[in-house]
């Protein structure tokens, strides 16, 4: 069905860089690529951190009442007063990573490698790079730099455009 001249395409703007928010864009991008789409991911603001070689992803527990972790046969939400404690993000992040592994869910590192393997175009927002004083040397290989116009050109030609 998919012929060379009618290859579908998808673009994603990735704006969030916590462990939970990193999943939707990488899952959708790698799946679309597996389904024959040309995929472009544009990483901006906190999403840019997902391109760092060394990922230390934690959860956003504070002010997130919908987050309920399965625990001892129940579901537990974390009260804001606990989320505000130092280390809460790292602790829940570690718990979530255990849970993901137990349930056979790929790690973000694994999905990102699959994205690179699938020739997904990874574009880092130049402005965010300057703003947060990131060094492109700390980012994974094979990414390109671009700005809003670069994204708009891709989006104008894409069948699916997502902002996550």
């Amino acid at each position, binding site marked *: 069905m998919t012929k060379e001249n009618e290859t579908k395409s998808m673009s994603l703007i990735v704006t969030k860089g916590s462990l939970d928010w990193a999943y939707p864009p990488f899952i959708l991008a790698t799946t679309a690529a597996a389904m024959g789409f040309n995929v472009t991911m544009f990483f901006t603001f906190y999403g840019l951190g997902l391109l760092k070689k060394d990922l230390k992803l934690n959860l956003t527990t504070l002010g997130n009442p919908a987050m309920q972790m399965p625990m001892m046969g129940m579901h537990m939400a974390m009260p804001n007063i606990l989320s505000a404690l130092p280390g809460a993000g790292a602790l829940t992040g570690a718990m979530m990573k255990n849970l993901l592994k137990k349930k*056979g*869910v790929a790690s973000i590192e694994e999905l990102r490698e*699959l994205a690179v393997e699938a020739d997904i175009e990874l574009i880092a927002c130049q402005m965010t790079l300057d703003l947060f004083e990131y060094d492109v040397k700390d980012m994974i290989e094979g990414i390109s730099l671009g700005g809003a116009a670069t994204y708009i050109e891709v989006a104008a030609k894409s069948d699916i455009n997502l902002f996550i």
Partner: protein
Amino acid sequence: MADQILDAKGLNCPLPILRAKKALKTMSEGQKLKILATDPGSVKDFEAFCRTTGNELLESKQDGDVYEFLIKKTA
């Protein structure tokens, strides 16, 4: 009869699809890939995958907790 068997049991979305795509890439047209999975979401996902990519879903069945798919590489 399948030419290749992919064991995706225990893997969750989207890994069964990604692994299947990887396996299909190494196969030639007309060959058949059998996939074993435990992810209940994979039933609808393999249907969608095949409709979109043009590969043929010859079989989709369930045996206990295991889902079995047979895909003929046609694209």
